[in-house]
């Protein structure tokens, strides 16, 4: 029983360790500059295509970076700052889709597909394992002998 469970336990350990490394927050509290960079990288530059406010060198992007820094200094939370930009420019200012409303489908569907696929794989593996292992009986061997052409 323990030997059968061992691969599954090893797999679970790999999943847990990977998730811990990826999801675990690194370092302590982010500095104001790190927060400004992070928020700027999530917001689309208003007057250029597919570049973030953090990356773009347009005047408006520079003004937005200064504005984000001022808002952080004024004590606004990251969510407040993001919302202020959504209120001004609409949802399209976000480079990543929101995790609510229709946007949840973008995040949810791959996860649902992963869970369903994984579930299907587990079921298939279990079914294959339960299939009986057949061994040739004497009667089977005799049948084969009879079917073989005589030399």
């Amino acid at each position, binding site marked *: 029983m323990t030997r059968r469970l061992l691969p599954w336990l090893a797999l679970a350990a790999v999943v847990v360790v990977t998730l811990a490394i990826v999801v675990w927050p690194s370092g302590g509290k982010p500095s104001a500059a790190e927060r400004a960079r992070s928020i700027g990288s999530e917001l689309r530059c*208003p*007057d250029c295509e597919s570049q973030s406010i953090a990356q773009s060198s*347009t*005047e*408006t992007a*520079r*003004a*937005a970076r*200064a*504005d984000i820094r001022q808002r952080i200094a004024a004590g606004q939370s990251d969510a407040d700052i993001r919302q202020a930009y959504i*209120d*001004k*420019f*609409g*949802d*399209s200012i976000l480079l990543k889709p929101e995790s609510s409303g*229709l946007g949840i*489908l973008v995040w949810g*569907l791959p996860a*649902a*597909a992963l869970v*369903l696929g994984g*579930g*299907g794989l587990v*079921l298939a593996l279990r*079914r294959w394992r339960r299939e009986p292992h057949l061994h040739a009986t004497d009667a089977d061997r005799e049948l084969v002998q009879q079917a073989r052409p005589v030399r």
Partner: protein
Amino acid sequence: MKHRARWIALSAGAVVVVLAIVLATQVGTDPRADANKSHLLGQTAPAYDLPTLDGGRVRSSDLAGKVVIVNFWNSWCIPCQQEHPALTEFFRRHAGDPGFAMVGIVRDDTDSAVRSYVTDEGVPYTVALDPGAQASLDFGTRGQPETYAISPDGVIAGTQFGPSSVTNLEQMYAAARGQR
């Protein structure tokens, strides 16, 4: 076992159906439509205090009580050049109205290029510069030309992304005066 497989198949089917419904309802909609309109319509217009090309200043507080047309433009933008005759004609129609003001805010351009454009083409209304692009950001502009009609009580009553015609300038003006 059979039931479990059925449930998995049903869940997968549900995911496919949800995806199909979402795709079907979104076909033909422009994912960037949100970017082609102002989200400040009906809201209080941002305050501004900007230097003008002639060395003065233009402040939103000084224009309170008037219908104000704010046009974001620059000298190198072709649609801005195309709409210039309409803006000029519209301004001439209303220039005598003491309850009307028009400000062209330059976005993303150099002073010298703007000065030379104004000399060559003639811009009869106030031209303001936007150093640091703060006004451009506050109005939520995504480019130029963009035009905003502000009511006497300071609310954005009309917006136009892209070149304006005299007709839609008049419509925005009427909306800002409360004569929809």
